[in-house]
Every structure is written in C-alpha cells, then in structure tokens.
C-alpha cells in the first residue's frame, strides 16, 4: 500500500479555487494553486472537514462501490452503530438488519458488538494500571493521524487497542471461515463507512499492517438501497430478534459513548476537530492530568456526525438514544483473563514528521529565520488570496520552495506601484529635459 492513500480527494472541475477549505483545514494541508485546491498528502488526516465546508461540493471521499461485493462468495457486512440512527420508523435494530440481508449480505457482524469487547479490554487495562493516564481513545482514525502529526508527545497516552471496526473484521472473518469452510479470500468483509477517515484507515491502517476489511462502502451510497429494502422488509415482516450489541456498544456512535463505557467518573469527551485540537493542546501542557480517559471524535457529535452520513447528527443521536433504551447493557464480554490478540495493536503507531521543516535541526533553524524574515514583510492580513491559509503559511511555503512572494497580491501591488511611480518619474524627467532644450 502506498503510504499516502487518501480517501479525501478533489473534483477539479467543481473546484472554484475559493479558499474555504484552505482556511478550515486543521493541519493546513490544502493550498489553492493555479486556481484549484491541492491537498498536501503527508499532512492530510482525512477528517473530512473540507468535504463538510466546501460550498461547491468539490471535495469527495473515495469509497468502494456496493457492486464490488459481487467479487466475494460469502459477504459479511459490518454496520457501524451510527448507521442505526440514519432512518426514521425504527423501533429496534431488526429492520435494518433484515434489510442488510435483503441487499445480498450473508452475515452481519455489528461494529457495536466489537466495541463492547474493546470497552471491556479498556476497562481491564486501565484497572491493571498498564496505561498512561489520561488514556486517549484510539478509535477515531482522523484523531489518531492528527496526534501523529501535531501531538506526537501524546502517542504514549493513546490506547493501544484496535478500533472496533478492525476487531469486528477479524472476528467476522474467523467466524465466516468456521461457518462456511471457505477460504479467507472468498470471504468479503464489507464496512459501511460514515466518514472518509475510516475508509482511509482500511487502505492505510495504523496499529496493524493490513486491515481485515476488504471494502468500505459509504453510508450515502447504501442509504437509498437500504431504505427500499427496509420498506420491503417492513411489509413482509422481519425475523426474530437477533441484534448483537447492547447499550454500551451502540453508545459508541455518539460522542461520550466510549468514555462512559470505561465506567470511570473522570473522563472527558470532545467532538468536532477544532475542539479536539484544543483538548490535545491542554493535554500536551499537562493540564488534564486529573482525568482518566479522554475520548476524541473528529466529527461533531461523534460518528453520527461523519460527512458520509445522511441524517442530521443530532437527530441521529436522539434516535439512537431511544433505540438504546430497549437494549441490554452489553451483549459481548471478553471470556477468560487475557485480552484476545485480535484486540491488540500489532504495530506501534509512530510520530509523523509532516510539520518539521527539515530533518537537520541546523537547517530547520536557518529556514525558521528566513520564515520570520519573510513573514515580517507580509501584511499579516491572512486573506488567503495567495492560496495559503495564512501569511505565516505562505512564508513557510516560500522557504520550502513551494511558492514565491509574488503570490501575495499586496506585495505585488506594492511592486506594481513602485514600477508605476518610477515610470512616472522617468516621464517627468524626460519632459523636464525636453523643456530645457526649448
């Protein structure tokens, strides 16, 4: 896998080169060049903020088409908790579950079921005092990427457990092999993704070498087909209660659900990328050392706020709250004393160096001086007309060789003004001279 696969991408024809996304990107990963937005791959965390804010719908998330499932003999679908909040008229989980079978899936493994196992493992590890407090949730891949790039100090506080999606994929595959006797490659594990970050995490996983998920189909793509299937199932009647997860697992779809499932009183849950950054800043300066657990979700309200969802996040959250009321506390627990290897990271998550100016500290110092010098000459208006999010970012781009001072329209205006006045004085001079002659 390439190190820089990104789900978030640009539809060039729709991009008007406005700087809305440039200004809102939390890692300053977007520039407008030659009239079109460009994503700097090594800085992008696939949070989807640009998709959320683009007024021209030019930012897209690359996911797999639903038709791809035909490649596999046996198809297992992994619905995330947030999917259950997308539709009206839901009294329980069965209607959506039946509709998923109707769409051609052979088996279902609810991500919420795996989430309950992750919660159990988290509680055990916290009790055993094996983790650095406050423990930071590792479930949101956009947050994990953000930490790698902007807060590498805090990686040692990150919960070293796989996200529920990965855990679900591993157990789902094991079960499918056992149930069918098919080979692993004949089984398709299909995740229905509410966000681009999770689609990226499947192609480019962190904490493991290869994801167990084969396809990531977006909620927005499956939504209409699933709705028709639900209508059909509602008419024909759904099967008996078979749902696999309880309140604890389903709670993971909303901000605060994972934290509450740690059963500690001292936890904090923040959602929305700007808020997440503020909390990480606080943690970095040791100001949250009185907390046990910190849950962070890049999307507002949590996974229900993912940009590939259809329903308003707060409406979805309310629905899920009602759905949860009729569920047991949890349906899944770890058996035995040991945490199964399926839940653990098998690869360390390492810091990313995308913000570093240069590998050599001496060069970095020199470049930083140049940046300061250039920045002092810029107007400090952060207008974005040059295509960079701020004057500071432009100064950095110039020093890194990606831009020039002429990109600044104010400096250019000064230049033109200077040329104009020197032309003018030339003219006057020549007139004076010709006057002398007469």
């Amino acid at each position, binding site marked *: 896998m390439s190190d820089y696969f990104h789900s978030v991408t640009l539809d060039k024809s729709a991009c008007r080169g406005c700087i809305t996304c440039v200004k809102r990107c939390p890692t300053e990963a977007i520039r407008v060049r030659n009239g079109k937005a460009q994503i700097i791959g090594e800085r992008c965390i696939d949070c989807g903020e640009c998709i959320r804010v683009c007024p021209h719908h030019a930012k897209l998330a690359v996911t797999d088409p639903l038709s791809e499932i035909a490649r596999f003999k046996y198809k297992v679908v992994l619905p995330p908790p947030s999917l259950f909040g997308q539709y009206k008229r839901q009294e329980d989980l069965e209607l959506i579950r039946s509709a998923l079978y109707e769409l051609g899936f052979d088996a279902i493994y609810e991500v919420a079921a795996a989430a309950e196992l992750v919660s159990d493992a988290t509680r055990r590890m916290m009790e055993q005092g094996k983790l650095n407090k406050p423990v930071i949730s590792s479930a949101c891949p956009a947050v994990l990427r953000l930490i790698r790039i902007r807060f590498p100090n805090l990686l040692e506080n990150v919960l070293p457990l796989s996200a529920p999606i990965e855990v679900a994929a591993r157990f789902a595959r094991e079960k499918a092999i056992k149930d069918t006797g098919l080979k692993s490659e004949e089984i398709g594990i299909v995740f229905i993704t509410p966000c681009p970050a999770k689609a990226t995490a499947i192609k480019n996983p962190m904490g493991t070498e290869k994801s167990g998920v084969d396809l990531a189909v977006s909620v927005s793509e499956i939504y209409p087909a699933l709705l028709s299937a639900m209508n059909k199932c509602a008419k024909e009647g759904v099967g008996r209660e078979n749902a696999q997860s309880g309140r604890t697992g389903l709670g993971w779809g909303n901000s605060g659900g994972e934290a509450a499932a740690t059963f500690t009183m001292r936890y904090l849950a923040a959602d929305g990328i700007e808020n997440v950054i503020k909390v990480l800043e606080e943690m970095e*300066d040791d100001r949250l050392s009185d907390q046990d657990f910190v849950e962070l979700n890049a999307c507002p309200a949590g996974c229900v706020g993912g940009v590939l969802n259809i329903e308003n996040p707060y409406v979805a959250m309310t629905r899920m709250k009602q759905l949860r009321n009729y569920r047991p506390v949890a349906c899944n627990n770890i058996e035995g004393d040991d945490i199964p290897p399926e839940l653990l990271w098998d690869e360390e998550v390492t810091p990313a160096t995308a913000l570093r*100016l240069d590998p050599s500290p001496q060069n*970095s110092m020199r470049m*930083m001086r140049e940046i300061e010098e250039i920045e002092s000459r810029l107007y400090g208006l952060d207008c974005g007309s040059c295509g960079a999010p701020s004057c500071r970012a432009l100064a950095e781009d110039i020093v890194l060789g990606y831009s020039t001072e002429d990109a600044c329209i104010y400096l250019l205006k000064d230049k033109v003004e200077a040329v104009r006045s020197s032309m003018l004085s030339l003219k006057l001079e020549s007139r004076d001279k010709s006057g002398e002659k007469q």
Partner: protein
Amino acid sequence: MSGNCLHYHYVVPGDDFTQAGMASSAVKQILKQLGLDPQIVRRMSISLYEGEINMVIHAGGGEIDVGIDDEEITAVLTDQGPGIEDIELAMQDGWSTATEQVRGLGFGAGMGLPNMKKYSDDLKIDTIVGAGTTVTIKVKINNSKTE
C-alpha cells in the same frame, strides 16, 4: 553557538485569562517545526505555560523573550508585579497566594513554580518585592533530563 539563533518577543496582557497561554502555544508550534525532540518540546512548553500563567495571575502581565540556539532554549519572563516575598515558600508544591476567584477558574493550584523547576534544566528567579520579577527558564536541546 549564537551565530544560529532565533529570537521571539511576546507581550502577555494582565488579568486576561482568555489569552493566557498564547505565547507558550506559539513557542510550542515553533519548536515542533524545528523538529526538536518531542520531550524537549513538552518540557519547554509546560515550563513556559506555567510562567506565563503566573504573570497573568500575580503580576498583571509582562513580557516574554525567547531565544533558541543550537544548544538550548531560553525564555526570560519579565514583569513589574509585586515580586515574590519568600521564594522558598513559593517553590513548595501547593503553595499559592492566588485569590479564590482565580482558583475558581482552575488556576492557582500552587504547582506553577515547582513545575517550572521540574521540567526545565535551569530556573533562575530574580525578584524585588514591590518592583517585579524576572524568571529565566532554560531547557537544553541535547540533554535527556527525565522528569
């Protein structure tokens, strides 16, 4: 050594908790871009943050000068506040003269100076009661002090 040196100057407004931490946050960003060891960045930013907050709580603001060279990061925090009467006492964990109102905001736990001492490689405090305080914090770049 000082041929390759960066200088930054920050003005810290007094009694404005909404802006408290702006300088240390800016310095942190610079240190990260310089590619310094994450632990060095962490220690410097915690020390500087504590110093900055102290200026806001106790001294009505002040000024911060930060210098970075190949060997160390130096921050000089200067204020015209009331000064520190008993430095030994002030260095004790949990000792604070912060008002109830300030404590209500979650500050003034009495860990400022002890934390600055803990996280820095060198801490110097020059204080004159009634005239002000100058705090100098140094963190070495190639030193691996553990907390």
